[in-house]
């Protein structure tokens, strides 16, 4: 909350200031996205498992060829996007529950973002590189 929102004398009631903020200070968007990404991964689980089964014990040439096909690449990209988002939210909940030191909490939340985005971007780059055949 910025300083402008909390002057020494405010006409806003305490209830008005806290309404819609909730315990997470941001409302229910993370709660909802956690569910969307969870449902998405559940739906994508069978296709993702089939892709992995297809590649078991195969060499890199076969794997690269399979991973570069459009349906396979799209399924994996969706799965990775949903996973990275889901795990970012999940780990943030764990951090907020167990890390009580404010500075350590901020650092942890930040590292969590870096890790999750890193996982998403590295996987996406690899799949796009395979798809472009470079």
């Amino acid at each position, binding site marked *: 909350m910025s300083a402008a929102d909390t002057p020494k004398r405010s006409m806003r009631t305490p209830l008005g200031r806290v309404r819609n903020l909730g315990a997470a200070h941001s409302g229910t968007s993370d709660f909802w996205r956690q*569910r969307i990404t*969870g*449902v998405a*991964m*559940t739906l994508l*689980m069978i296709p993702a*498992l089939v892709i992995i*089964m*297809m*590649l*078991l*014990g*195969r*060499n*890199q*040439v076969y*794997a*690269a060829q399979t*991973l570069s096909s459009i349906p396979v690449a799209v399924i*994996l990209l969706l799965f*990775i996007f949903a*996973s*990275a988002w889901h*795990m970012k939210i*999940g*780990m943030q909940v*764990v951090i907020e529950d167990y890390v009580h030191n404010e500075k350590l909490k901020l650092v942890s939340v930040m590292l969590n973002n870096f*890790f999750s985005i890193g*996982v998403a971007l*590295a*996987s996406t*780059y*690899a*799949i796009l*590189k*395979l798809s472009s055949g470079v």
Partner: protein
Amino acid sequence: MQVYRWTLTMALSIVHRATGIALYVGTLLLVWWLVAAASGPAAYAHVQAFTGSIIGRLIVFGYTWALMHHMLSGIRHFVWDLGYGFKANEREALTWGALIGGIALTVLIWIIAYANGGGR
């Protein structure tokens, strides 16, 4: 916390978190695999040497279970989110379902994996 009698639902709530954290770390394996596939045969052979080793197989087996358990346990949460399954016997049934289902699916996946490609 000590005043609570431990229930299966409480224990499984912690397992849901623990498997979530394990899956979080385990995504590194997924990234390594995809980046190696995009890098070339030598890098890919390293991944295969690791996943084919005893430790590698144990980790991937554990990862499979964590994924299946977390998914079923998550579906249990969806049922609760929709407002069903709160009676004592329903809670227990859903929780046992996630526990047994997670193990059963893991074994099933590995049987299919071995039948399909483990010998290649």
